[in-house]
């Protein structure tokens, strides 16, 4: 799995690398950089108008003015790009409004197939788990076959009430009675799942306006597929103009899309992206951190996200220990096993790896894919080692290898591969942590570096 924005980061970094080596930025450099930035952003599906503005701002600021003594001109360009990117992405983490008089009404809108129904359930789960709210769901998609069944099934999975009236009633009436029902039953939050519709379908857009007028939502969230291309701007503009949305949920961000739509939507609506859908499971909805995303674009990694993630799933002490181990590259196979267990409970490995600084720069990490079935094999091999072997992998000689292979039901080649990869991984940890420490140094990724569980 590749990480959203990874290729964008890579592209920018390549250009920056060229400039970084120089003591002085010439106008030709700025021009070349601007061209690279432009291409990268376009390839990432950022709307071409947004790209134009962005590149012009960077150019203006990069040439002349604001010269700082502490930075080389190359660093300064990077700083400018980072600042502009951060500014464009917005600078705040967003929250869900609370109505002064409950229930808080949240309306989900968007095109067909963006993921409204799934996001409705994910958001309800999130609000209950993290904010102690008691949501009720309302099934107002009467058009798509079995959309109500879908929400009902999700409601059952979550053990959460779903209000529905079938497909023969006007959605405007359904949401109105749904909100009344929520009030009667003392739910503090009610989430309305509406049908997907084209932003140019006047009748259906009017229907949304009527719904808005009748229930007066506290939040109107536009659900947008992160893979959307240039059209994202039209969609966001239209929904915002007609409904005045309060925020955006970006879905399918666990794909390998570069997600430039996020930048475009921010730029044209100036509404915050509040959440990101990061997987098919019901708990894979995360608050969207624009400032972290911007730093991720520039390859500075997302250590904060990693630590936060570790805190919710692993106890804090263990997380610190893990972090220290990562830093010191002081791994034994025992730690390794423990990490596999903990990491497994933290969610998909590729998510975590993507948050590590520099991970997207390593050769072989590009288009990285993690094969979960390999983890079992790795575990078996490690568990077939003696305590001493786990602590000092160096002592593993040919006959030990044969024994380990036999014990784990694998081959000597498998054992060799794991040992090699384990060493590579330790080296890489060292490289990454030295980068984190701010020392520029030589940071060449080893060619074809692989984690033991990568395909």
């Amino acid at each position, binding site marked *: *799995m*590749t990480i959203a924005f990874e290729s964008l980061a890579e592209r920018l970094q390549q250009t920056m690398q060229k400039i970084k080596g120089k003591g002085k930025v010439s106008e030709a450099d700025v021009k070349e950089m601007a061209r690279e930035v432009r*291409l990268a952003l*376009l*390839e*990432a*599906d950022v*709307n*071409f108008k947004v790209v134009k503005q962005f590149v012009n701002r960077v150019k203006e600021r990069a040439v002349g003015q604001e010269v700082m003594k502490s930075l080389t001109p190359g660093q300064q360009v990077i700083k400018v790009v980072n600042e502009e990117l951060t500014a464009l992405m917005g600078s705040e983490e967003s929250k869900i409004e609370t109505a002064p008089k409950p229930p808080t009404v949240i309306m989900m809108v968007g*095109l*067909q*197939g*963006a*993921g409204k*129904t799934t996001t409705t359930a994910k958001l309800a789960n999130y609000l209950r788990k993290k904010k102690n709210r008691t949501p009720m769901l309302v099934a107002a998609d009467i*058009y*798509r*076959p*079995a*959309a*109500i*069944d*879908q*929400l*009902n*099934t*999700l409601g059952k*999975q979550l053990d959460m009430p779903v209000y529905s009236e079938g497909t023969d009633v006007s959605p405007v009436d359904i949401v109105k009675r749904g909100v009344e029902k929520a009030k009667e039953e003392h739910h503090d939050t009610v989430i309305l799942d509406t049908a997907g519709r*084209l*932003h*140019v379908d006047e009748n259906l857009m009017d229907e949304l306006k009527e719904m808005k007028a009748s229930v007066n939502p506290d939040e109107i969230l536009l659900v947008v*597929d992160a*893979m*959307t*291309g*240039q*059209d*994202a701007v*039209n*969609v966001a503009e239209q929904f915002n103009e007609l409904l005045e949305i309060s925020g955006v949920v970006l879905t*399918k961000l*666990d*794909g*390998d*899309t*570069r997600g*430039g*739509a996020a930048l475009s939507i921010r730029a044209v609506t100036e509404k915050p992206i509040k959440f990101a859908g990061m997987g*098919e499971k019901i708990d894979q909805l995360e608050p969207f951190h624009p400032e972290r995303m911007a730093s991720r674009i520039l390859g500075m990694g997302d250590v904060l996200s990693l630590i936060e993630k570790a805190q919710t799933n692993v106890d804090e002490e263990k997380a610190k220990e893990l972090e220290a181990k990562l830093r010191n590259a002081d791994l034994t196979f025992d730690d390794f096993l423990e990490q596999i267990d903990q990491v497994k409970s933290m969610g998909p490995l590729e998510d975590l790896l993507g948050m590590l600084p520099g991970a997207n720069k390593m050769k072989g990490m590009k*288009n990285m*894919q*993690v*094969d*979960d*079935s390999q983890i079992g094999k790795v575990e078996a091999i490690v568990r077939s080692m003696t305590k001493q072997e786990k602590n000092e992998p160096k002592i593993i000689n040919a006959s030990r290898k044969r024994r380990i292979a036999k014990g784990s039901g694998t081959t000597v080649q498998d054992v060799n591969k794991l040992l090699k990869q384990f060493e590579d991984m330790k080296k890489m940890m060292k490289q990454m942590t030295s980068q984190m420490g701010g020392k520029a140094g030589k940071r060449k990724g080893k060619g074809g570096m692989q984690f033991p569980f990568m*395909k």
Partner: protein
Amino acid sequence: MSFFKKLKDRVTNQTDSVTTKFKDGLQKTRDSFSEKMNTLAAKYRTVDEDFFEELEELLISADVGVNTVMELVDELREIAKLENVKNSADILPVISEKLTEKLDFTGDDSKLSMNADGMTVILFVGVNGVGKTTTIGKLAHHFKEQDKKVVLAAGDTFRAGAIEQLGVWGDRVGVDVIKQAEGSDPAAVMYDAIHAAKSRSADVLLCDTAGRLQNKVNLMKELEKVKRVIQREVPSAPHEVLLVLDATTGQNAMAQAKQFKEATDVSGIVLTKLDGTAKGGIVLAIRNELDIPVKFVGLGEKVDDLQPFDAEQFTYGLFQTLAEEK
């Protein structure tokens, strides 16, 4: 412009209803695209760097894809230089000719390949939310109209409500749906469906699968397995593997096409949701870079709003205003 005339003549000879449907569905595309082309010609009377830059942006805004656009614009630069074209109006026909060239006009591979002696099995693949189930419903209707016996296989056992959704389409169109419980093995559903369809002597079996992002290794392996099971039961099958693409998707559609092709040897594309403002320009890029033909386009929400792809119709729709003005 002889090119446009030829195109127009050939298109007008075709059935009007299809043309109208195409025209309506592509209204948005055509309006904005050709409008911009004309504005471009008016704005830049001379062919210079500004003109090419604007052209680049126009094509990029249609999601054609950066590589394809750069390639195309470089070719045009070359032509303009060689033939000493100064007037922007003179280069417009060259632009459309180049575009249609890239779409590949031969069009032989844009027809569905059907099994001449026995049941035709079509497998549908794609990422989440592109419209696989809806497309199957529409295509079932399409085959039913041709008096074919159709059976549907509810292979999306993952997403909540997916089986019910296909069930509704089955009722609507009047065809049988073979299904198992949610969460069961999709390969097992296919096995069942093939035998059920055979015993009912069906002509066509349409196999739904769960949407999956192309970078999920395990899910792509599952899809490979589904295809293997189909192949084992009917050696010549699947006769088509159709990748369903959402026209609003940007550059990631290329990655989707690549990965799904690698896993399941995709034989064609269904481009859905072309009735919005999305330009569908990605068709060009995919044809150009991966040589996967588009077989159907989704032009609306109604059951008969799925149309066989016709490169000439498509191009005519894109350039209609231009064609009529010239």
